[in-house]
């Protein structure tokens, strides 16, 4: 059951947080050194980002063993493609977490597809508690900022973004789960992200 994605209940995640994200120049520099083969720099990069990476993978795939595999694969990819990171196009953390997220979503979908083949499967949408508090990292200002921004979204925007990003559902699945017309969910996801982008000053 622990590979099953529930419908997020949308409740705030308490004091979960991450190391401050204000270290963008340092992370970019560590990646640049990693591209030259500097393993110590990459270890430092790992230490500064692993809680965010693993936490995101765990939230999406839910199974801790799978989350570890996804995280490890993502860091291996990041190491390999470190020379292709372009600090002019975004932050190092954002670049890494995009890799982690893609791998986590691919994993959760392939596990479901395999389960469907093996057992004849109905997706279980029973809510399950996110029991992460005991392991959570320290609260951070960034996490509070993000929560405040998310709180300003409309209900449909917030649920669409969370189902897609944390649930790993496709926009057509999100439309069905939220009982909105097909084609509406992708617009809500985009509207919601654009609002968050503007509120949090991402450029």
């Amino acid at each position, binding site marked *: 059951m622990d590979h099953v994605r529930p419908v997020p209940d949308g409740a705030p995640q308490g004091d979960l947080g991450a190391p401050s*994200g204000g270290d963008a120049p340092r992370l970019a520099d560590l990646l640049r050194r990693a591209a030259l083969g500097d*393993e110590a720099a990459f270890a430092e990069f790992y230490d500064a980002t*692993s809680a965010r990476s693993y*936490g995101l993978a765990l*939230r999406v795939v839910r199974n801790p063993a799978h989350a570890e595999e996804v995280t490890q694969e993502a860091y291996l990819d990041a*190491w390999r493609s470190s020379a*292709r990171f372009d600090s002019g196009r975004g932050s190092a953390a954002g670049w890494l977490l995009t890799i982690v997220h893609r791998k986590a979503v691919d994993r959760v979908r392939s596990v479901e597809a395999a389960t469907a083949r093996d057992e004849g499967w109905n997706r279980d949408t029973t809510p399950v508690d996110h029991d992460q508090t005991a392991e959570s990292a320290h609260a951070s200002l960034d996490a509070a900022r993000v929560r405040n921004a998310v709180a300003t979204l409309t209900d449909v925007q917030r649920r669409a973004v969370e189902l897609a990003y944390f649930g790993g559902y496709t926009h057509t699945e999100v439309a069905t789960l939220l009982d909105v017309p097909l084609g509406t969910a992708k617009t809500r996801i985009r509207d919601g*992200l654009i609002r968050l982008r503007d509120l949090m000053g991402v450029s």
Partner: protein
Amino acid sequence: MSDLHKLTGAYAVDALNDLERARFERHLAECEDCRAEVRELQETAALLAESTAVEPPASLRGSVLAGISQVRPLPPVVPVTSAPSAVRHRFPLLVAAALVLIAGFGAVVWQPWSNPAPTLTAAEQVLQAPDAQRVSVDLGDMGKATVVRSKSQDKAVIVTDDMAPAPAGKDYELWLLPDADTYVSAGLMTDGANQTTVLDGSAADAVAVGITVEPDGGSEQPTTDPIAVFDLTQST
């Protein structure tokens, strides 16, 4: 076009299925506005992970560092000068069905490559796997295509050689066949005469790989007869 543009958000949070993703990525290659918006929305989405941070098990650090020590970082992307691609005539659809026969007779089996290199891209992992099986189909005027499947990697890759483009408004769609009569979509073939595409999905148990011509964006099930079938049971 305007409809595709609205998929930036769904793409940024990986909320597209494989076919939509492939289609949108081709659009991205041509749309600077969408590329810029996707970058910003991916950056925004990544901030959501601030609220879910969890310290990983200490053992993961050692696994990651042991893993990277065995692989060199890829070289940076450097500008290359390439000749403009030759203009090819459109392949007439009417001939497509006849090619199934050519596909059957044209299959050739290669031996696996030796000396697997360190882990590289997904395609390279398959191409260099010790158990790689290769089946090639000569499509005549349309070019040539080779499917490489690795059971240990559970993946298949198709490599095209001077392949004619799909007809206007159509895509080449790839299929994995778990048995002779079942087609499971494996995504769209990358555009271009000489391309390498990793098939989506589990390939270890596939008996064959097929290519069909489908309406732009692909189909859930084939709507035309395959233009080529690669029989994996013939390879060793």
